[in-house]
C-alpha cells in the first residue's frame, strides 16, 4: 500500500504569540493509505477543520510535518499538491465559482492550464461520474444543495485527484442531499479507488469509513475501525457526538429490558438481532 497523506506530530495554534493559549491541533499523527476512506470526527472546536486546512497548505503546522503524496508540504510544492488534492467545503453556495455547472467544474482545470480540448472531455467525464451530466448549463441557483455539492465533487474530480477531502461537505444539506452526496462518494470509491478523507460530526457518515480518527480538544483521542470507535459508546456522547440511530435504539431497547447481543451500528444488524435473539421456538 502506498501512503497518500500523513501527519507527524503536528501542532498548530491560531495565536502563536500566546504560549499559554490552547492549541487548535496538538501533537497529532496519523497516516492515510491509498484507497482508504478515513473519517475525522469530533465536536465543534475539536480541531478537525484545522486539520483539513493543514492538509493542503491553507495553514502550515507550527511543529511537526505534513506529508502529502510522500513529500513534505512546503510553499514550493504547494500548487503541485493542490492540483492533486480535491476538496469540498461545507457551504454549497460559497464554493460555486462558475456561472454555470460546466464552468464551475472547469474552473480548477483552467487554473491548472489544461488545454481546451481536454477540458471539454474532463468536464463531461467528471459530471458523468457524479450523475450531473444532464445539468451542464444550469445556473447554481436552480440547483439543490445536494446537486451543488455533487458539482463541487465533480470539480474536484476533474483534476484527477489522488485524494478527496470532504470538509463537512454534508452538514448543510437535507437528509436527501446528504444521501445523494454520500452515495456518490461511495460509488466513486468503488469505481476509481479514490482515497477519501471526510471531516464530519455526523457519525452515520463516519460509519461508512474504513477508519475513524476521533478528535477531542485538539488531540487525537482515539483511532480505529468504526466498530472499535463506536464501542466507546458513552464517551462519544460525553464529547458531544450524536450516536447513529441504530445504536441509540439498541441502547434504549436494552434499557427497556429487551435482550440484545452487543452494539449494533446499522439498522439491519439491529433488526436481525431483534428477531433472532427474541425468537421463541
Amino acid at each position: 500500500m502506498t501512503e497518500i497523506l500523513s501527519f507527524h506530530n503536528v501542532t498548530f495554534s491560531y495565536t502563536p504569540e500566546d504560549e499559554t493559549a490552547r492549541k487548535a491541533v496538538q501533537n497529532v499523527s496519523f497516516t492515510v493509505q491509498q484507497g482508504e476512506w478515513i473519517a475525522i470526527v469530533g465536536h465543534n472546536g475539536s480541531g478537525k477543520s484545522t486539520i483539513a486546512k493543514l492538509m493542503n497548505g491553507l495553514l502550515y503546522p507550527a511543529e511537526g510535518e505534513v506529508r502529502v503524496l510522500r513529500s513534505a508540504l512546503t510553499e514550493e510544492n504547494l500548487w503541485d499538491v493542490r492540483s492533486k488534492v480535491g476538496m469540498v467545503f461545507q457551504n454549497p453556495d460559497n464554493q460555486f465559482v462558475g456561472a454555470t455547472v460546466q464552468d464551475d467544474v472547469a474552473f480548477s482545470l483552467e487554473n491548472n492550464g489544461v488545454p481546451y480540448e481536454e477540458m471539454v472531455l474532463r468536464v463531461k467525464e467528471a459530471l458523468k461520474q457524479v450523475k450531473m451530466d444532464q445539468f451542464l448549463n444550469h445556473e447554481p441557483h436552480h440547483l439543490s444543495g445536494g446537486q451543488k455539492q455533487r458539482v463541487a465533487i465533480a470539480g474536484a474530480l476533474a483534476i484527477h485527484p489522488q485524494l478527496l477531502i470532504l470538509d463537512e461537505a454534508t452538514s448543510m444539506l437535507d437528509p436527501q442531499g446528504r444521501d445523494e452526496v454520500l452515495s456518490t462518494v461511495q460509488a466513486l470509491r468503488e469505481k476509481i479507488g479514490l482515497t477519501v478523507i471526510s471531516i464530519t460530526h455526523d457519525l452515520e457518515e463516519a460509519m461508512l469509513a474504513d477508519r475513524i480518527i476521533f478528535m477531542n480538544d485538539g488531540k487525537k483521542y482515539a483511532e480505529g475501525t468504526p466498530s472499535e470507535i463506536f464501542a466507546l459508546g458513552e464517551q462519544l456522547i460525553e464529547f458531544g457526538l450524536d450516536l447513529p440511530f441504530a445504536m441509540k435504539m439498541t441502547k434504549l431497547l436494552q434499557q427497556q429490558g429487551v435482550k440484545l447481543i452487543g452494539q449494533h451500528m446499522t439498522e439491519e444488524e439491529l433488526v436481525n438481532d431483534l428477531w433472532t435473539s427474541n425468537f421463541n421456538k
Partner: protein
Amino acid sequence: MMEKMIFGRYIPGDSFVHKLDPRAKLIFVFAFIFIVFFANNAVTYGLLLAFTLLIIFISRIRLYFLINGLKPIVFLMIFTFLLHTLFTREGAVILDFGFLKIYEQGLKQGIFISTRFLVLVFMTSILTLTTSPISITDGLEVLLNPLKKLKAPVHELALMMSISLRFIPTLMDETDKIMKAQMARGSDLSAGPLKDRLKAVVPLLVPLFVSAFKRAEDLATAMEVRGYRGGEGRTRYRQLKWDYRDTICLISLVVLTALLVFYRN
C-alpha cells in the same frame, strides 16, 4: 415593476443576433454610438431608424415589449424633444401662440435628437437583451486584452464581474430571507414615514454585509484550494467563436457608415 424593466435583462433565444459573438456585438454597439452622430438630415436619420428596426426584427424581440420596457426613458425623450423644439430659433415660424413660437428648425432638431436618443437606447438594449451577462464579460475581457500590456488587471476585472453576476441571485435570496426574519421580529419595512423606513433598512443591510463578507472569504479559500493564482498560465473554458455571422455584422456596420457619410449634408 421589476418585471417590466428591461435594462440589463437577458432574454434567451436563438435568433441571428443571439448567436453573434459577444465581441462582434460589443464592437458593433460601441461603433454605432459614434456613427449615430454622422446623421444630420432626414435621410440619414431615417436610415438609422430603419436599420435599428431591421435589427429589432432580426433579433425577434417584440417591439411592443421593447417599448413597454423603455417607458422610463420615454419621459426623457419627450423632455429632450420639447427642449429642442422650444428653444431652437431658426428657420420659419410654424406655430405662433404669441408668447411661444415654434420654428421649423426647432421642430426638426427636436425630432432628430429624439430619434438619435431612441436609436441609441434601442441598440444598447438589444445588446443586453440578446447577450448573457457572462458572454458580455467574456467579450469585454478578450477585447480589453491589449490593455494587459499597460498592466491593466483585465483578467481580474472580468473575473470580478463574473463572480458578482454569479452571486446576484444568491444575495437576493439572502436579502429575502433576512427581510422575512426581521419582519418576523416585528420590523416593518413598508409603512411609516420615509425616515422610519430608512431606519428599518439598517437591520437588513448589516446582516447582509456580514454574510456577504463571510461568503467572499469562503469563496476565496475555495478558489485558492482549486488552484487559482491569477490569470497567468490559465486556459479558458469559454471559447468565443468568430464565424461568418460576425463578419456580416461588421460589414453591415461599414456599409451603414458609408451610406451615412454619403447622404449627410
